[in-house]
């Protein structure tokens, strides 16, 4: 399986990377660890003539409790005991990404922007051609939900839900300048699902920032998958909370692996603030999350089951947070 030819650029600064991006606008991809992009390239999915490697860009490195550079390797983040102490849910999620070998190369930025997945998309060129291409690559219709407007490929990154629950922000740099947005805002919840994010042309994720409030929260991440390694999430449930005794000072819950984008449920958690986090309330809340999500049949496990498990996994994630905060039910 060889890769089709492309031109590889290796800028050594952010500025140079953005210049290259402008020069090859519309015809390039950024390359971080390559563990998501290169398998997709080998399957001839949405190839571009230029790759801009980010590995030599120093501005994208660095890790501390407040800022995590986008080019930090997952394995290095995983090894960082200080991070794990501060954000146990983030540590949960890191340990669950892919495999140790993928984590040795894979980066934080790549994980946040991992391509969405679908049985009909993550296939060889031969396979897709023999069925007829779909909206997300070369085609004009969807094989999962038969129509021609929207793609339902599943967001399958493990880190976004927990970082979103921790109120992380993304630092972005583009040809038009820098900005900082809530992490969840880089995902295009209102879009057609074909493009998985709403970064501007050439925009780079520089870093993820975690506010002081995040360090006051306990957090947890639970992942449903068939095997304890390799498999992408069929459902990932993240929770972060600050509990005062049993009472909720803040609570955020986010899920991935179910829909086209990772999703936070502020409208469902808001009523719990100030309340005692009892088992009953928690059950009702998890039930409501389950009712809110709409997985489709494009991953290994059936959507029905993934929905049902959303209730269980969300509940257990929050329970774990409660446990980690030392609070009783």
């Amino acid at each position, binding site marked *: 399986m060889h890769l089709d030819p492309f031109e590889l650029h290796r800028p050594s600064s952010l500025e140079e990377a953005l210049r290259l991006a402008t020069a090859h606008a519309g015809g390039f991809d950024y390359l971080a660890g390559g563990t998501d992009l290169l398998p997709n390239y080998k399957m001839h999915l949405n190839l571009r003539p230029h790759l801009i490697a980010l590995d030599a860009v120093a501005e994208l490195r660095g890790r501390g409790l407040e800022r995590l550079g986008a080019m930090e390797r997952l394995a290095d983040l995983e090894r960082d005991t200080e991070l794990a102490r501060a954000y146990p849910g983030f540590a949960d999620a890191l340990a669950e990404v892919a495999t140790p070998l993928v984590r040795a190369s894979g980066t934080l930025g790549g994980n946040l922007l991992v391509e969405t997945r679908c*049985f009909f998309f993550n296939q060889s060129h*031969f396979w897709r051609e*023999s069925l007829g291409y779909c909206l997300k690559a070369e085609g004009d219709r969807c094989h999962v939900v038969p129509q021609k407007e929207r793609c339902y490929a599943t967001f399958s990154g493990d880190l976004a839900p927990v970082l979103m629950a921790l109120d992380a922000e993304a630092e972005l740099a583009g040809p038009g300048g820098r900005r900082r947005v809530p992490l969840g805002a880089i995902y295009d919840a209102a879009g057609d699902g074909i493009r998985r994010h709403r970064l501007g042309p050439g925009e780079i994720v520089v870093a993820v920032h975690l506010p002081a409030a995040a360090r006051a929260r306990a957090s947890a991440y639970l992942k449903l998958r068939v*095997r*304890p390694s390799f498999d992408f999430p069929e459902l990932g449930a993240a929770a972060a909370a600050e509990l005062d005794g049993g009472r909720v000072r803040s609570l955020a819950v986010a899920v991935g692996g179910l829909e086209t984008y990772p999703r936070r449920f502020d409208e469902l958690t808001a009523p719990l603030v100030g309340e005692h986090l009892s088992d009953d309330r928690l059950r009702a809340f998890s039930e409501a999350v389950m009712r809110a999500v709409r997985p489709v049949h494009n991953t290994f496990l*059936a959507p029905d*089951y993934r929905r049902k498990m959303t209730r*269980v996994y969300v509940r257990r994630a929050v329970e774990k947070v409660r446990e980690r905060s030392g609070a009783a039910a």
Partner: protein
Amino acid sequence: MGSALPPDGFTLLGGRIPYIEGPLKVTGRAEYTDDLQRPGMLVGRLLRSPWAHARIRSIDVSAARSLPGVYAVLTGERYPTPFGVLPITHDETAIAVGKVRYIGDILAAVAAQDEPTAERAIALIRVEVEPLAEHTDPKVGVTPVTDPIHDRGLNGSNVQKEVAQHFGDVDAAFARAAQTVRVRGSFAGVTHAFTEPMATIAEATPDGRLTVWSATQVPHYLHRALSEVLGLPMHRIRVIKPEVGGGFGGKSDPLPHEIACAALALETGRPVKVLFDREDVFLTNHGRHPTQNDLRVAADADGRLLAYDLSAVIDGGAWSSFGTVTTYYNGVLAMGPYRVPNFRYHGRRVYTNRPPSGAMRAHGGTNVRYTVEVALDELAEKVGIDPFELRRRNALPPHSTTVNQFRITSTSFLACLDAVRAASGWDAAFRQLPYGEGIGLGCGFYISGSNSPIHFTPKMPQSTVHLKVDMDGGIAVHSMQADIGQGSNTLLAAIVAEVVGVALERVHVIRVDSDVSPIDLGSYSSRVTFMMGNAARRAAEDLRTRLVRGASELLGYPPEQIRVGRERFEVAHRPDVSVTYLEALHRAMERTGALTAAGAYSSPPMGGSFKGARAGTAPAYSFAAYVARVRVDAETGEYRVGKMWAAFDCGRPLNRLAVEGQIEGSIHMGLGQLMGETLNYRGARLMNPSLLDYKIPMPAQMPEVECLLVGEDDPEGPFGAKEAGEGPLVATLPAVANALYDAVGVRFTDLPITPEKVVKGIELRQREGRPWKGE
């Protein structure tokens, strides 16, 4: 002949013998087919069919042929002779002729200077077809259909093989039965998923010869198929088997790409390599047949078995492959390890427009074993006795005959039951663990080598081993047995070293090469230890006789009084009088130069004389009793097998390291099929042709395995040994299923048992108002 070896005076056999090619494998120096290079080698590529079932109208290869860097483009007409692993069902061609029958069927083959050129050429081939009705449901395919997949289907249906057998009187037995049980099993297809993708290199030379290196388990069948299809006599073809990265049955058929690769070599005069990617491997399949079976069991009030009434519908995919054997095996392999006085079987294997099914580890025995063992668990419950007791009451005794005339010789089945019951703490656990935890028993029975060589009568040896020793004292061993990782090279060397009394490092097992290796039928049907082992023993004894004669001449004592020592030959009653191995060797060589010796094995006549009587006959059988402990998360349906106690009767284990390795690997493969592996089809389309979506278990999913090797010596096995390559798989699945029943009170008969099914099963039981274990 020298005197028989003292049974327990072994220096190697019965111990833990590290694999002799280990040092090459751990350093990356072992050579697999894709590691080989030939000067001027071209890249071979295949055009695969995007259609599941279609008549080929035309294939235009002109643009591909005229692309610079392309050396040959072949279509099916060039070598249209049909072939197949069984002589009675030749229904495959190297490249499709007239029709394509599954998505992935080979339409054309290209040889080009490099990979990009070959791929461009493939893309330039224009194919026009007339689509035909797609057949994907074997239950529909049993009746006449429009556009049957092959002309040879029964009465215009897609039935490739139908077997109807009846021994004794099943209806009468059911009429007098006190207890009956019925289990309908449903099994998704699974595949071997060995780590080394298939690869073949072929080279035709101006001396009129063709050499083929291929990742194959059965070099001899490949040799025959190449000869038949390419029209070259066998002696002009040389087949070499480099190291093989696992097979499990998936590399036992001669495969179309191997022949197509050779055809490209003949066409171009240049060496050509065809290397598969993972999707190619999945599409080539030949894995375990998707199967629906239905078993009714009749027993008396004490749980003594009276009859089995069994039927099966088996999804064969596009070709026959081993399917005729599969169809029989899915019935007759139910015939042990219990005495079943009446037996009826109706089996049908049906072609579908899916990648061909074939032989996979514990071929034909896995699915039927599951159904039998789950049914017996249920029967024990109905009768009100312990599952162990039920099995004890029904165990086949040693030296008996089954109702379908299998000759049972050695069996340590009762010893297996006793050992595993004690080791697993069964009596304190069964039905006594808290809800969600369970313990279960599953038993096994498998052939130790198919009695029937496929291509010739049993009069020709199924295994042959040649030895050659020259002055240096190294013993070269030649045999076409095919080590694919199971350790047969090591066993071969160890047997020779043991018998001749030399150090293991003196023995060199020569890579399989049809020019020098005498025929052995290779690695399938768990035959190698038994058959090759016997041949090796005989060859080594032949060699030892000559060495003893040399020693006798030097020492001045008659051969009967010479004993084999460690690298020496001694006078039996005067061990101080001896010669070294090399001295004896050099004396023995004086007349003939290098010594050569040969040994062969043919299985003895056995089996009945009715149609299909040979299927399932074997010179010996393995027996097993496994106990599994599971823990179920009743809310999510996720479960984990914590421990597996595996009592196995392989006769005398000759290499404990290898036997354990086979058991552990078999349990892994069995658990895969049980827990999540599945060839997931939508219609004719395989949805998961990748190692990401085909769920091979990971280390954290493996139970702790405790092997209990309790076999006694088999009378005909080499040094008392029987098989351990495939039999260890079959007990795995029902042991876990029965443990799941003990844990949550649900019978699972639809494999794989996914967490989703567990949750649904529990919900259904609860809806039916059947609480379990104080839940």
